[in-house]
C-alpha cells in the first residue's frame, strides 16, 4: 500500500500540508496531479461560522480511506498514487479540514480519482462536523446516514458504483 497515504491529523499537534500531499503523489511516470483542499469557510446556510470541531471514529475512518483507495484503483486503473487526510479537533476559520490528492499518468484519471475520493469520504467516512456560530450557538451538521448504503468498506471494488454524481450541499 505504498501508493496510498491515509492520515488523520490532530489540529493540536500538526496541520494538513498540501505540499506533503503533492510530494506523496508525485512520480516520474505521472503527468497529472489533482488536489482538493477543504477549508473552514466563514458561513454556512446563512449563518456566520467562527470555527468547526471535527469528531472522527478513527479506526473506521482509516479503514474507509483504504477502501476509497481500492475503489479509486478499480475505477481509474493503475498506476495511481493517492493521498487522503482529514483534520480532527477544533479548527478555526480558514484552517484546512481535508486534503485529497491523486497522481496518475494523465489528467482525466487524476481528476476522477480525486473527485471519487472526496465524495466517498464525505458520504461514508465516520466523521462529524460541529459548526460554531458568531452568536455563540453550535450545531452538528445534518449528515449522510451510514445505514442507507453499504459503506465503502463492504463494497466490491469492481463494478461498484460511485457517488460522484450525488452531490450534497455539504
Amino acid at each position, binding site marked *: 500500500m505504498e501508493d496510498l497515504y491515509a492520515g488523520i491529523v490532530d489540529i493540536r499537534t500538526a496541520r494538513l500540508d498540501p505540499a506533503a500531499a503533492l510530494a506523496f503523489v508525485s512520480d516520474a511516470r505521472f503527468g497529472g496531479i489533482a488536489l482538493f483542499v*477543504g477549508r473552514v469557510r466563514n458561513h454556512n446556510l446563512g449563518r456566520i461560522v467562527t470555527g468547526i470541531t*471535527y*469528531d*472522527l*471514529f478513527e*479506526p*473506521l*475512518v482509516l*479503514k474507509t480511506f483504504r477502501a476509497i483507495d481500492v475503489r479509486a484503483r478499480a475505477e481509474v486503473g493503475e498506476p495511481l498514487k493517492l493521498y487522503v487526510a*482529514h483534520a480532527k479537533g477544533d479548527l478555526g476559520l480558514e484552517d484546512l*479540514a*481535508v486534503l485529497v490528492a491523486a497522481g496518475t499518468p494523465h489528467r482525466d484519471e487524476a481528476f476522477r480519482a480525486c473527485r471519487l475520493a*472526496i465524495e466517498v*469520504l*464525505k*458520504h*461514508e*467516512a*465516520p*466523521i*462529524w*462536523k*460541529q459548526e460554531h456560530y458568531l452568536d455563540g450557538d453550535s450545531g*452538528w*451538521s*445534518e*449528515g*449522510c*446516514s*451510514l*445505514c442507507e448504503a453499504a*459503506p465503502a*468498506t*463492504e463494497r466490491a471494488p469492481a463494478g461498484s458504483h460511485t457517488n460522484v454524481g450525488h452531490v450534497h450541499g*455539504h
Partner: protein
Amino acid sequence: MNLHLALYGALRDADPTGYLELEVPEGCTIGELREHLVAFLKTHTSQVSESAVRGSALATTDTILHDHDSIPRNGELVILPPVSGG
C-alpha cells in the same frame, strides 16, 4: 447482556461521559438494539433527536454491523450518527 456504547458526533450530546451503558436481552440483534436505544434515549436525554438515532449505524472498531447481525460477545459497540466530514 450489558452493552458499552461509544458516542460520536451529535450523539455525544446524549451523555457527557461519551458513552452509554445499556442492558438488552440475550440474543438481541442490531436492529432490535436500535429500538432499545431509541426508547432509552427518550427517557435519558432530550438533546438527541429520534431521527438521528434511527439514522445511526452500529459498529465495532472494525466494521459496520447490519440490522440482522447479532451483538458482539464483548458488548462493545460504537454508535455512528449520519456523517458530515470534509
